[in-house]
């Protein structure tokens, strides 16, 4: 690794970025400094709007039209980046500083095979001949851990899985072996186990002597790979330093909030056993298959069952395609199972063949089975105000119109929103506020069960923690039971009494949450457990030392 020692570093001092036009012009990044040295990884961590992506883009001259980037020093080796024109940037980008964009699906040309995409990155800098480029492409695909590179090089992005796409994108950025690699949210939107693979790949790249700058909203991801972390909030560095130090001894309140918000860092607060042990929602032997686009039957849900008691929470955890959302839809009575049956509140709710329940018979009971979706915005009629949305739900629950105004006030209070929210439209609210409205809607008719389908997956961590807290409080106040679907075992750990681990449509492991997490039996569960932040070095101690 003698070469690594002479590789140049990326030095950023006092970076400031101003964006926007006219009255909208504002400073989005101010006075941010860090150094990306060869073989080291620096992480920029922050929530949406923290300015982390803008910072990264400024370092490759892509801050955008009208962006004003200034810095006391912005150096790559001996090159002053602040003095570069567009042509000089083009020579530098890719060759010296590689950039992995956030979304692999939209960042790769959908009509071009992956091999050509990477070869173009080489050709753009006049690297080698057509034949040597071809060899280099296969070499690169192999080095980022893509199996069968000859075959994959001839496939289009849509023919690859999410993990392979992300690897291909990283391969594109690595094509010219740049000394510095910037990765914007490299593991976001990937399943937990795939996330772990990509992190391992980045770790290898780092050890080969490349300097890494990782942009992420996810403290857990960062803690596994970064040597230094910069915590950004509203464009300012709240805190920075060696990762272990920042995570174990956070000095700034915002850092503490972020760490405290990481789901699953703390186990669920113990609570008194509910007064009744009545089973409110029960599923038995559910099977559902779909006809795939290739005409072959695919079993989405295979022999799934559970019994949810009043005031309790069952968590279903699994990756995309594991059948957890299909299970939720069957439990909601929105999809009929091929086999098996669901009982809600002591009466048949869904079944197959003879036992099929007509929608007409379900309708009266529906208000007592609430639902909260991952994307609340799309679950609201875009024409309606919050008051209309909640009024409609109260209507469904048979509340007379005269009482609507008071009840809407109560519902908003219950989800900790000011009463003025009633007059606004969901589009004008933040993600967390929208999810609170969705929860208020599901509460309108005093439900016995609420099915939560990835309710916090689209939210920033600190907002995520607040929403989970709210759900927990509501359960204690009203005794509602939750069927909680998530891909995130950390989230599940925080809310569930009992957990079902789904893999390939089957329940591979089940039991009381702490038991399953403490002693996972199935290989897949073990992988999931290994990936949850509570088990990540540094955070373990923090989680334990933080006050409840």
């Amino acid at each position: 690794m003698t070469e690594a020692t002479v590789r140049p570093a990326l030095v950023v001092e006092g970076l400031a970025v101003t964006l926007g036009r006219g009255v909208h012009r504002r400073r989005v990044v101010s006075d941010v400094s860090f150094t990306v040295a060869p073989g080291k990884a620096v992480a920029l961590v922050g929530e949406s709007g923290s300015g982390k992506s803008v910072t990264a883009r400024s370092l490759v001259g892509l801050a955008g039209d009208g962006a004003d980037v200034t810095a006391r020093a912005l150096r790559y080796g001996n090159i002053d980046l602040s003095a570069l024109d567009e042509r000089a940037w083009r020579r530098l980008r890719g060759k010296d500083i590689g950039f992995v964009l956030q979304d692999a699906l939209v960042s790769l040309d959908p009509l071009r095979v992956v091999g050509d995409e990477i070869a173009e990155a080489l050709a753009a800098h006049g690297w080698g001949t057509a034949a040597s480029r071809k060899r280099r492409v296969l070499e690169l695909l192999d080095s980022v851990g893509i199996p069968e590179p000859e075959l994959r090089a001839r496939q289009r992005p849509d023919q690859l899985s999410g993990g392979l796409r992300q690897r291909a994108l990283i391969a594109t950025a690595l094509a010219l072996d740049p000394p510095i690699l910037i990765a914007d949210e490299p593991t976001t939107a990937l399943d937990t186990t795939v996330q772990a693979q990509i992190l391992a790949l980045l770790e290898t790249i780092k050890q080969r002597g490349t300097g890494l700058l990782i942009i992420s909203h996810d403290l857990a991801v960062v803690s596994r790979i970064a040597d230094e972390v910069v915590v950004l909030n509203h464009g300012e560095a709240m805190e920075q330093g060696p990762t272990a130090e920042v995570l174990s001894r956070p000095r700034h309140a915002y850092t503490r909030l972020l760490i405290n918000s990481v789901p699953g860092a703390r186990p669920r607060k113990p609570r008194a056993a509910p007064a009744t042990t009545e089973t409110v929602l029960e599923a038995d032997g559910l099977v559902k298959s779909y006809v795939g686009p290739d005409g072959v039957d695919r079993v989405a849900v295979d022999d799934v069952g559970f019994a949810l008691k009043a005031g309790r929470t069952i968590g279903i955890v699994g990756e995309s395609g594991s059948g957890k959302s299909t299970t939720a839809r069957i439990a909601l009575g929105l999809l009929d199972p091929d086999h098996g049956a669901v009982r809600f509140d002591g009466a048949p709710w869904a079944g197959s063949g003879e036992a099929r329940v007509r929608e007409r018979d379900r309708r009266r009971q529906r208000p007592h089975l609430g639902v909260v979706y991952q994307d609340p915005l799309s679950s609201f009629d875009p024409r309606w105000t919050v008051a209309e949305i909640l009024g409609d739900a109260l209507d469904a629950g048979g509340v007379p119109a005269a009482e609507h105004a008071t009840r809407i006030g109560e519902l908003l209070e219950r989800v900790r929103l000011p009463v003025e929210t009633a007059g606004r439209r969901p589009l004008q609210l933040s993600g967390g506020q929208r999810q609170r409205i969705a929860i208020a809607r599901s509460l309108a008719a005093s439900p016995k069960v609420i099915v939560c389908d990835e309710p916090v997956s689209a939210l920033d961590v600190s907002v995520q923690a607040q929403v989970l807290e709210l759900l927990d409080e509501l359960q204690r106040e009203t005794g509602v039971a939750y069927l909680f679907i998530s891909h995130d075992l950390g989230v599940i750990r925080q809310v569930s009494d009992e957990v079902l681990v789904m893999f390939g449509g089957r329940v591979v492991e089940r039991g009381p949450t702490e038991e399953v997490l403490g002693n996972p039996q199935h290989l897949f569960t073990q992988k999931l457990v290994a990936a949850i932040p509570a088990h990540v070095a540094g955070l373990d101690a923090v989680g334990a030392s933080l006050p409840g």
Partner: protein
Amino acid sequence: MTSPMTLSDALPGRAIASHIRIGRLPPASAVIPCLFLVLLILAAIEPRLFTAANPLAIAPREAFQPPGPAHLFGTDQSGRDIFTRVIYGARQSLLLGVGAVAVSMTLAIALGLIGGLGGRITQRAVGWTLDVLFSFPTLILALLFASHLGNGIGPLIIATGIGNVPGYARMVLGQVVSARHAGYVEAARALGHSPARIIRRHILPNAMRPLIVTVTMGIGQAIVWSSALSFLGLGAKPPAAEWGTMLSMGRDFVQRAWWVTFFPGLFIVLTTLSTTMVGRYLQRRLEGRLP
């Protein structure tokens, strides 16, 4: 299934959108066409506000007078005042435009709802029907109906209306299908609302909203189509004061007396242009506020 086409696909351009939010007043590109349409509607209601002459009075001695102080737009082969005829033609043309759009929208909404809300087979049947109708150009389809229904304004409205059905129906169908699969529809189902209520309160309003713009622009389009039918001799009979018929009557004299065809043509163009501009203004307004 055809993919649902949205208006933003059909009509790009939101460059002027920023103007709308800055000032309270709509931009001139919306105000001027609005004014023109208001004047046109006034002319349609009470043509005598604009002219005292009789649109059908002939004066053979004054045939082919060029535009001048006596006859603003000149006279035609029988000495009729073209300005008066254009003013009187406004009623017919607007009636045609609004009527034809009403006919096509009624049929299109019916087809779109049946196709969008029906089962798999119904949906496919409607899709095929539309595909077959689509293979005829609008004008040919309208001609087909006009030649069967006979002359006059009523048949003209129906023929033009039917000619436009496939295009509108496909748009309605796309909107209904996308509204039907929207998250809020499933949320309403989960709340226990009946299908009738979901259609009435969610699917219909959300599917129709983008069509406001289409309807506005469609009126101008329908005027062009019906004028074309009249020009071909399938609409109002001469010497009726209808813009398309006037075009048709003047075509033999284009060399000698350009004004006979020019002014009715100009008003067809201006009307279509105005409805299109108002439609695009509405589109930008609605798009700005909606997701």
